[in-house]
């Protein structure tokens, strides 16, 4: 992996988009970086945390995105450049503070970096965070390749400082999690002394107090809108906006971010550069109005290629309507015309489809008979449903929870939350999870269900959340549940890290983002202090955990069960197996056993498989992690575990 501090100016290297963003921040002389882990944004903070000591940075995994934004703003107020990072829905969490931050503006440069996930590849939504730029009235930058990911991050901090507003830099999965060729620039030192000057007058946001209030709103918004007009003029000259194609193309394609790469390749594959021009925008709010207008005027028709929502399309159409005398009447294609899908991720083929339809050309990616044979062949390849990793504590926890709920009866259910354990909705989690929304909403909903007794509600209600989610958003909801004596059990699936996103530390862990000692918060003590009854179990002790969960279900009022067992992918566990597992073939009675093969049909750990020919379960040595849980699951005791030593 490239060491972001070691590589010298001018070096050409392969960088992941998020590493390029991190390097851009270093080249801008950033001092403070804060974020909350979320795919596809996490590697920005991870990369910076690895060089924090050498670069003299404060790098933090904040408890949530709003706090991350506040931490970054404090640095800016004290004269230090800063960034905060988050995934798309994190913007919704941070937005309350960011809305108010436009009321004062910033001092040193501050960039809010939001990495979106069009197509929801690793999300439960495909929110388009670009609309926040319009709502909050701040500039929006969208890198279109890996070089720009680095260069525009640097520029975002410079621009923010010049305009005195924070700037949003927006990336997507196919930029953040892809890697590309980047030529590095020079690193800047950040050795400024931090000082918050607050002796100036009210409304002097460069020297006075940073205060938003009723009397200042109109003034502040007027100032902010002036900054946007200045930004638009600057964007007209920006090298990050570029045009390829003839001066007066039949069709003008307007695009940004990864979509601009799809558009360029689509035009190339169709051999359509003689008819089609591509206006690639790196600054999408406010629009570089004169530049866009010039290209609109020269084009016959316009296609807007973007994902996931029609943000750019709206802005370009508004501009064209306002300036109709210059732009002329245009036919617009995009999401609203149905040429670009209104939901989901785009790719080159989607753009080829749109272009082919508009230009009236045929495109067949492969000979028809090949496509038919290839499609038929996929039926021989069994599909892969998602599951928990071999040795994952969540499989054991949900197994125990499922059995306890079944024994309790009355159609109890689990309110899920956000993390690997969202897969509790699938057979991997025995389908116990029946609601899944945003961070912390499991216990929030459960707290609501838990007060419906007055309306005849008698189903047992369980909420689950991970240890990182507990701190991020479950705590306030648990306070509410305890305060109102809701009839609910919260199960904290504590696997000692933010596992889904790559094992980042959180406030419950004794170290911070850069590996320094931090004060760990004790989830058990917090819940007890709130007044909930608390038990702690190891889900790998299956029988005991099941018994404890069942007895907790028999009680009423707010209860918390902490199921604590480290993630199977944690660095400590990867070193070796605790148990050597084997199947005693003589004792394995296959489909005649308990629930017709409890181990492979029900428990479904990837470390086990059913040998249909020999009619016995077997262990896959390459995959098994030696957790030993399947030995507890087998009713005939055919799965044996021995200490691996």
């Amino acid at each position, binding site marked *: 992996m490239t060491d972001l501090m070691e590589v010298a100016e001018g070096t050409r290297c*392969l960088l992941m988009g998020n590493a390029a963003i991190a390097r851009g921040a270093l080249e801008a002389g950033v001092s403070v970086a804060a974020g909350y882990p979320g795919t596809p944004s996490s590697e920005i903070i991870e990369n910076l945390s690895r060089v924090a000591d050498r670069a003299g940075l404060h790098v933090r995994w904040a408890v949530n995105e709003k706090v991350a934004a506040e931490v970054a703003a404090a640095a800016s107020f004290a004269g230090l450049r800063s960034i905060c990072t988050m995934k798309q829905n994190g913007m919704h969490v941070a937005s309350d503070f960011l809305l108010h931050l436009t009321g004062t503006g910033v001092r040193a440069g501050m960039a809010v970096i939001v990495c979106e996930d069009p197509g929801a590849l690793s999300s439960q939504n495909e929110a388009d965070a670009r609309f926040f730029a319009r709502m909050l009235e701040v500039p929006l930058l969208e890198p279109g390749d890996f070089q720009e990911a680095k260069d525009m991050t640097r520029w975002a901090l410079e621009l923010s400082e010049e305009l005195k507003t924070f700037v949003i830099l927006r990336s997507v999965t196919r930029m953040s999690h892809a890697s*590309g060729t980047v030529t590095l620039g020079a690193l800047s030192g950040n050795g400024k002394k931090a000082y918050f000057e607050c002796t100036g007058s009210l409304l002097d946001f460069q020297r006075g107090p940073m205060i938003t209030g009723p009397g200042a709103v109109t003034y502040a918004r007027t100032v902010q809108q002036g900054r946007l007009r200045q930004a638009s003029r600057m964007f007209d000259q920006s090298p990050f906006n570029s045009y390829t194609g003839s001066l007066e193309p039949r069709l003008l394609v307007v695009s940004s971010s990864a979509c601009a790469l799809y558009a360029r390749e689509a035009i190339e594959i169709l051999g359509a550069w003689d008819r089609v021009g591509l206006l690639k925008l790196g600054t999408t709010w406010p629009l570089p109005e004169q530049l866009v207008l010039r290209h609109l005027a020269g084009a016959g028709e316009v296609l807007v290629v973007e994902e996931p929502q029609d943000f750019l399309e709206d802005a370009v159409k508004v501009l064209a309507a306002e300036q109709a005398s210059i732009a002329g009447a245009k036919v617009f294609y995009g999401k609203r015309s149905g040429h670009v899908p209104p939901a989901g991720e785009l790719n080159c083929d989607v753009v080829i489809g749109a272009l082919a339809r508009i230009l009236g050309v045929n495109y067949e990616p*492969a*000979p028809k008979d*090949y496509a038919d*044979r290839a499609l038929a*062949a*996929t039926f*021989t390849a069994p599909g892969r449903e998602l599951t928990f990793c071999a040795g994952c504590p969540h499989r054991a926890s949900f197994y125990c929870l499922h059995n306890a709920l079944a024994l309790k009866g009355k159609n109890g259910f689990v309110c899920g939350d956000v993390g690997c354990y969202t897969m509790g909705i699938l057979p991997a989690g025995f389908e116990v999870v029946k609601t899944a929304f945003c961070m912390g909403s499991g216990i929030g909903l459960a707290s609501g269900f838990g007060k419906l007794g007055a309306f005849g509600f008698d189903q047992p209600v369980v909420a689950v959340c991970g240890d990182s989610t507990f701190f991020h958003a479950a705590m306030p909801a648990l306070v509410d549940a305890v305060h109102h004596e809701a009839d609910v059990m919260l199960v904290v699936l504590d696997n000692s890290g933010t596992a889904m996103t790559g094992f980042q530390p959180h406030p419950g862990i004794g170290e911070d983002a850069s590996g320094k000692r931090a004060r760990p918060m004790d989830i058990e003590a917090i819940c007890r202090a709130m007044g909930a009854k608390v038990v702690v179990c190891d889900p790998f002790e299956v029988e005991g955990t099941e018994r404890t969960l069942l007895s907790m279900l028999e009680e009423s009022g707010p209860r918390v069960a902490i199921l604590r067992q480290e993630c199977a992918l944690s660095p400590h566990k990867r070193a070796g197996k605790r148990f050597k597992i084997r199947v005693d073939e003589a004792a394995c009675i296959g489909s005649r056993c308990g629930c017709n093969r409890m181990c492979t049909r029900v428990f479904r750990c*990837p470390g086990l498989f059913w040998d249909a020919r020999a009619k016995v379960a077997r262990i896959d040595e390459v995959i098994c992690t030696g957790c030993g849980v399947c030995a507890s699951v087998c009713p005939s005791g055919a799965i044996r575990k021995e200490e691996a030593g």
Partner: protein
Amino acid sequence: MAGRTLSRDPFSVIVTGVGGQGNVTASRLIASMLVAKGYVVTVGETFGASQRGGSVMSHVRISACHTYSPQVPKCRADVVVSLEPTETIRVLASYGHPETRCVVNDRPVYPVRVIAGEVEYPGIEEIDRTIAGLCRAHVMIGATSEALRLGNPVLQNVIMIGALQATGLVPFTRADFEGLVSAEMAPATAELNLEAFDAGVRLAEQAMGGKAW
């Protein structure tokens, strides 16, 4: 110029497998060698569900001049490197064309529904025949078994890189690989990886039976 050794520009390689098999690392190693040789390379990856039993693909786009998108357009994969046999078929169905070449590991990773006995995993001969019918040439090697012989299944991805090098389809050499691992890994690890690379070359050469692609 580097571009002359690419049979197409962009040249697209898809490395596929199942989460945890090391294909993300494999694609980055391949890409790093090519960037060092002056190519403009983009690697597209799918994360998140990847470590949780899902199919995982990395798209490597190699060009002498441009940054291409991190997703290979339909039917435009020039080479498929597959750590899992049936994943080859899935990738060919979306990205293959009659001229695609494949380098395939013969070790199945069973999907959950196969583990559960709900569906059957096809026999390796059937998979081999299916792949043969969908590409210009392919080679199937026992990379996982070889990795286990070398002491660690994670080496399967490096064995596959060696096999890819032996096909001569992608412009990198053993010296490029040696340079990369000696710069990025501890000496003992680098040595082990080089051993795995050589094993991959040997297995692929045996399987190709002296015929050039």
